[in-house]
């Protein structure tokens, strides 16, 4: 049950080491601080889950942010009503978002292709509007759901007195706001990655891949594909809910904007950028997009001037305004350019680029320069990465 084939196990171990050592290797990138590390872990998990639906099953959902939002709201309510411990919060988040995904999936999966995408988009937008205005008593509307001093917190308050300040989310004393929250999210990401690997190599995963390659043919063999697609939808919705719950664990505030269609689109971009169908690709895509959104957007002209202070003033005055277009408020421009380049030249995402390089290197080391390019062969391994 808890074993993996050797190749998968190695990938898994490398992944675990990469994730847990992020506070160290992200230092040179200026990204090693708890806030962003937590974001990396959480959105990595979101992307892993999204890939189970999009990458494995081939159903493109444009409404996954709705589950992220549901998970966040559920977790905050768990803090408000019961306890500041993150474990019940994320369990509730998984359950409620799973139920929610079951409802939406049941209806949306009556169609496939573009119609499915539009249906999920419509449901997500409905959820957003509900959270924004109609369900204000539950979601606190635009302001967002936050902790207050008057929260019942029945479990916590049965054991301790109400403090003077707002309580903080803590796992048996370990504060979830700083590095503690990162390691908590990182361990859940690693577990989620493991589960995704297991799904990909399981008979169930093979079935999903079959549905992706040709759903009609699966139907002709007498197989009812509906339960499989619905299961994939619910699982990926639960991943999203878990990610949303973790967002609330590291920062107990849930707002409706988390459910907006832009957030649903962002997760699609992450998966496409990193590599559809691979397991690590979506995580990489999530990290790159969040890195751009948080680090590139903060570079201003002053920082650029400092970076290029070794150049003569005239070159600097030419270069800095030019580069300034692509950083700071122009970070989305850089992101867009990069996205276009990846989609045009590496349709399989950054993971395809990695595989091409790997093929080249192995070809060079074995000095068989004739058979350098064989991307067609490597593509088949995409699902098992």
């Amino acid at each position, binding site marked *: *049950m*808890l*074993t*993996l*084939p*050797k190749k998968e*196990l190695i990938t*898994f*171990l490398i992944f*675990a*080491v990469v994730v*847990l*050592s992020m*506070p*160290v290797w992200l230092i040179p990138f*200026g*990204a*090693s*601080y*708890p*806030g*962003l590390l937590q*974001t990396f872990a959480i959105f990595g998990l979101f992307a892993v889950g999204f890939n189970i639906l999009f990458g494995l099953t081939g159903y493109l959902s444009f409404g996954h942010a709705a589950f992220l939002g549901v998970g966040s709201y559920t977790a905050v309510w768990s803090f408000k009503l019961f306890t500041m411990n993150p474990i019940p919060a994320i369990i509730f988040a998984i359950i409620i978002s799973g139920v929610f995904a079951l409802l939406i999936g049941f209806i949306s999966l009556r169609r496939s292709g573009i119609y499915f995408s539009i249906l999920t988009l419509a449901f997500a937008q409905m959820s957003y509007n509900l959270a*924004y*205005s109609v369900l204000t008593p539950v979601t606190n*509307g*635009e*302001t*967002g759901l*936050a902790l207050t*001093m008057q929260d019942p917190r029945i479990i916590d308050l049965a054991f301790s007195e109400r403090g*003077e*300040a*707002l309580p*903080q989310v803590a796992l048996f004393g370990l504060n979830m*706001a*700083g*590095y503690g929250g990162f*390691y908590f999210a990182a361990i859940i990401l690693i577990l989620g990655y*493991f589960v995704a690997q*297991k799904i990909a190599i*399981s*008979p169930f995963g093979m079935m999903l891949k079959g549905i992706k390659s040709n759903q009609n043919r699966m139907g002709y063999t007498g197989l009812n594909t509906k339960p499989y697609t619905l299961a994939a939808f619910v699982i990926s919705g639960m991943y999203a809910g878990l990610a949303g719950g973790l967002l609330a664990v590291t*920062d107990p*505030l849930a*707002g409706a*904007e*988390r459910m907006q269609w832009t957030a649903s689109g962002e997760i699609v971009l992450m998966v496409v950028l990193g590599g559809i169908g691979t397991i690590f690709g979506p995580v990489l895509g999530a990290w790159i997009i969040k890195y751009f*959104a*948080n*680090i590139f*957007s*903060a570079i*201003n002209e002053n920082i650029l001037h400092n970076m290029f202070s070794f150049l003569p003033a005239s070159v600097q005055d030419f270069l800095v305004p030019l580069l300034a277009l692509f950083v*700071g*408020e122009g970070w*989305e421009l850089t992101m867009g350019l990069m996205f276009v380049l990846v989609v045009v030249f590496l349709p399989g995402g950054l993971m395809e680029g990695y595989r091409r390089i790997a093929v080249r290197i192995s070809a060079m080391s074995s000095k068989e320069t004739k058979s350098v390019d064989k991307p067609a062969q490597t593509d088949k391994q995409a699902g098992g990465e």
Partner: protein
Amino acid sequence: MSDQKKGVSRRKVIKTGAAGIIGAGVAPMVFTRGAWAQEFRNNPTGSEVTFGLNVPQTGAYADEGADELRAYELAVKHINGEGDGGMLNTMQPLSLQGNGINGKKLAYVTGDTQTKSDAARDSARRMIERDGAIMITGGSSSGVAVAVQSLCQEMGIIFMAGLTHSNDTTGKDKRRYGFRHFFNTHMSGAALAPVLSAEYGNERKAYHLTADYNWGWSQEGSLIDSTEALGWETTAAVRTPLGAGDFSQYITPVLNSGADVLILNHYGRDMVNSLTQAVQFGLRDRQQNGKNFEIVVPLFSRLMAQGAGENIKGILGSTNWNWSLQDAGSQAFVKSFGAEYGFPPSQAAHTCYVQALLYADACQRAGTFYPPEVIRALEGFKFDGMGNGPTEYRAEDHQCFKDVLVVRGNQNPTSEFDLLEVIQEVPRAQVEYDAAIFGGELGPYEVS
């Protein structure tokens, strides 16, 4: 699932691997964090101290954000003793000496709030956790201000709010670590009511169009309270989505509602669009109930007036500050801002500039950056010479109390910036209220 592979099991590898990683990677970090915690977060130990400027650089309030950033850059220069000193020449009392704060040179880092709570909190966390910002300031939305303020309370970092007008910021959602210089919707209502009564009489029927978020609700509530106290009736209060663009479907029902005043609780581009469309529908040329139909925009800014052009002429509203004020503080600020950038500052720029100076001055007065001491230095602080006359930071809710300006869209502007005519400076006493009416708790001085 069935094939049990030989060799090491996953569990065993994880156990040994994780122990090694935690030992090597995590432990040093835990120890260093512990060492800092004995002091306070981001205690500046070097020769520099850093402000975190969190302003909207993209989205609906990007214009305000750009102007806020200009004001902050100017404030940093003045605090470091560069430039002409601006309001440092007029502020009373003043502890700053023009050599930075507590002998440390002032630096800054910037972030983009995108006018979204999540993005704003992410960028605030980056500036606090990575860049070591001692204080976070800025913003142009009440939703963002409330969200960032509560984050700052948790982190033990002082937040000096930028442009935020909702009552909640220093009411229901006030925090010990959050301070607001800008006025609020309650003050707008209290300042506008007598002027509305004098201009339009006491028998009016008002129709509200309200931006559907925290600030809009707050302003709608305050305006309904103060106008109904005059004897006005409220025909309807309709919520419009933020950033709607087309308001025609909301304006048509106004024509048949029997109302004779339209109150637009919109800001930024929303207000520019809704006002322009209301004028295009001929509302201002109408007669209703035997009176001229009127439009009121309770929160005005010069940047919005520029966007609305001709349509703004003659319309009443309130504002925190306007560059045409003649007192020494305003003049000094307008002069140095104009010399630097070539045009006058907006009210957003003014409030941000003042906030940066007030924080810096409080640190200098307290002789430390230790937040509880700085908070005590700001609470109840009375000052003058910063553009709004004698002002007090009320200790009970961290709200500044000062005169409020009632303005009218200028009929005969003398320049492209001369768009608002100040018709009354409503004295502080008239807009003051009891801190208890909005509820909320400030919370503790010390944060673990």
